[in-house]
């Protein structure tokens, strides 16, 4: 999703396609060739992404429990699963919780990532290299590993966080359990998510910042703009496309968060910790109500589509438009 679409090369290449075709001669084989080339990829994507997506929609209209699992055949119930979700106060709480949690994570990631990227412009090159190397290290850490190490840092008995907070005089955190109170628990899980997401955002934004024309910034400064105004009227407009991409990707990732919640709570999250990804998973694989789990997943997909429709549309238009010449 990162590759640039290069209109120029494609336009230049275009007549060459035909030249090549004439050289190759055998017209029919040439016409069939690209289809043979894409066929395996299309088959894989269709079988494991497109078909399951359709199956998900069908499943959400079925009752599919243990018995149906053995028979490999669901029982049609129409939109009953959705009706029961709609009437379920617990599910409404899950949706609200997921939206708030996603928003908080995305906002924190973008704000901190932007601040660190701006900071990187103002420090010694050596220090910048060191910080970037550290960020790459964080970026490379597998999620499961990240959750394990944060779990250890927030351990109620020997965790270093409790020790540090207590000794910094911020209160008595000895034997403080962070997961008894869901707000504190979600804060810890949010820290894990944001910590893991900051490197991608920072490195990307910093790369974008280096492309902000120096002359415009200087011109603005000469005209008396302060740092905040430079940021608002020069930096932000130039970086807008990157911000949109980062916000969209962060939303997609954080909204379906599962691993961090699940592993952090040792695969036994209480009702207070149900976010949509976890709730759908629990309904399907723990309660064995696959139909209901599928309905929750469908709601997830639809909410995400609505949230990211703007970006997807403009990106598709840009990607396909860039190839229009061919």
């Amino acid at each position, binding site marked *: 999703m990162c590759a640039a679409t290069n209109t120029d090369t494609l336009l230049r290449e275009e007549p060459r396609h035909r030249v090549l075709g004439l050289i190759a001669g055998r017209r029919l084989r040439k016409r069939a060739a*690209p289809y043979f080339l894409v066929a395996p990829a*299309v088959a894989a*994507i269709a079988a494991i992404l497109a078909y399951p997506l359709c199956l998900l929609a069908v499943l959400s209209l079925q009752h599919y429990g243990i018995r149906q699992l053995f028979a490999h055949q669901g029982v049609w119930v129409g939109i009953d699963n959705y009706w029961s979700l709609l009437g379920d106060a617990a599910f409404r709480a899950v949706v609200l919780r997921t939206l708030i949690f996603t928003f908080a994570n995305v906002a924190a990631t973008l704000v901190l990532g932007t601040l660190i990227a701006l900071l990187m412009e103002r420090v010694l090159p050596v*220090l910048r290299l060191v910080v970037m190397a550290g960020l790459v290290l964080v970026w490379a850490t597998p999620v499961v590993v990240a959750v394990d190490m944060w779990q250890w840092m927030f351990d109620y008995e020997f965790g270093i966080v409790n020790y540090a907070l207590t000794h910094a005089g911020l209160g008595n955190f000895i034997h403080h359990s962070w997961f008894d109170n869901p707000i504190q628990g979600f804060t810890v899980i949010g820290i894990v998510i944001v910590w893991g997401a900051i490197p991608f955002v920072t490195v990307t934004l910093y790369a974008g910042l280096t492309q902000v024309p120096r002359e415009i910034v200087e011109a603005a400064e000469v005209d008396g703009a302060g740092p905040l105004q430079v940021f608002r009227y020069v930096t932000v407009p130039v970086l807008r496309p990157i911000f949109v991409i980062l916000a969209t990707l962060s939303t997609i990732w954080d909204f379906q968060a599962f691993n961090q919640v699940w592993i952090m709570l040792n695969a036994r999250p209480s009702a207070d910790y149900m976010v949509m990804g976890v709730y759908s998973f629990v309904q399907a694989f723990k309660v064995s109500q696959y139909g209901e789990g599928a309905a929750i997943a469908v709601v997830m997909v639809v909410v995400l589509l609505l949230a990211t429709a703007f970006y997807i549309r403009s990106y598709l238009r840009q990607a396909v438009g860039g190839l229009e010449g061919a």
Partner: protein
Amino acid sequence: MIGRAWIQRRRPASRQGQAVLWNALAALVFLVMVFPIYWMIATSFKSGRDILSLTPQWFPIHPTLANYEDAWHKPFFLNAVLNSVQVVGTTVLITLALAFLAAVAIARYNFGGRKAFIVLVIGVQMVPLNALIIPIYLLLDGAGQTDRLPGVVVTYLAFVLPFVIWTLRGFIANVPIDLEEQAMIDGCSRGGAFLRILLPLVAPGLVATAIYAFIQAWNEYIVAYVLLPTNENQTLTVWLAGFTTNHGPQWGPLMAAATLTSLPVVAFFIVIQKRVVANLSAGAVKG
């Protein structure tokens, strides 16, 4: 330049102070971000008594490899490593083969349905993959492919394929088509030109995307967790996430195992990240 000099002259003292402040802040950012990783590694080299002390020990004063030995001898650790290597290796190889073919098609051919294929490749990346776990599980369960590695490989394959195709397309488009034409004039078939000329020239792209696929497959958790229920068949991340005993988590061996799990990824990631970032920001700013 004039403007800049003027500003510097206007407030030299505050500039100096600011620079110190920014650098100190950056150092703090570095410490906060890296500390959890340091703490994991430090803990992995400490003895059990030093780990479970009420006053934390900032450095492993009595370094020991006992935790690594412990983790190594845990049941199913070697199984898990082997499974991960198999799954990841197969996924990467098949992904590269399929993606190269498809990328050649969209970069070098003009065919009906090309645009639809591109829309598919990009659109599919927006689907929240966690939402597909349920139907994929039922699908593979019906085919008798749960608790077997091929089911996981196929799933990973489909998850990484779209991104790899799209990235490789960029690499291929950057190779001048003249080179292939030359080869064909010299008597090479078109397929031969792809294999002998194009393939070696996009090698850097293949390496970068291979590492991407490697990292994704190595780090993946939920699919393997659902599809591979028995201990013998687990991959490393599933094994690591299940690392608890009746006596609560053993932090030392857990941190040692976590360190081992992240080693290959860290190594490969450092190779890949520059290229990915360059691609991303270039595409974004141009748009």
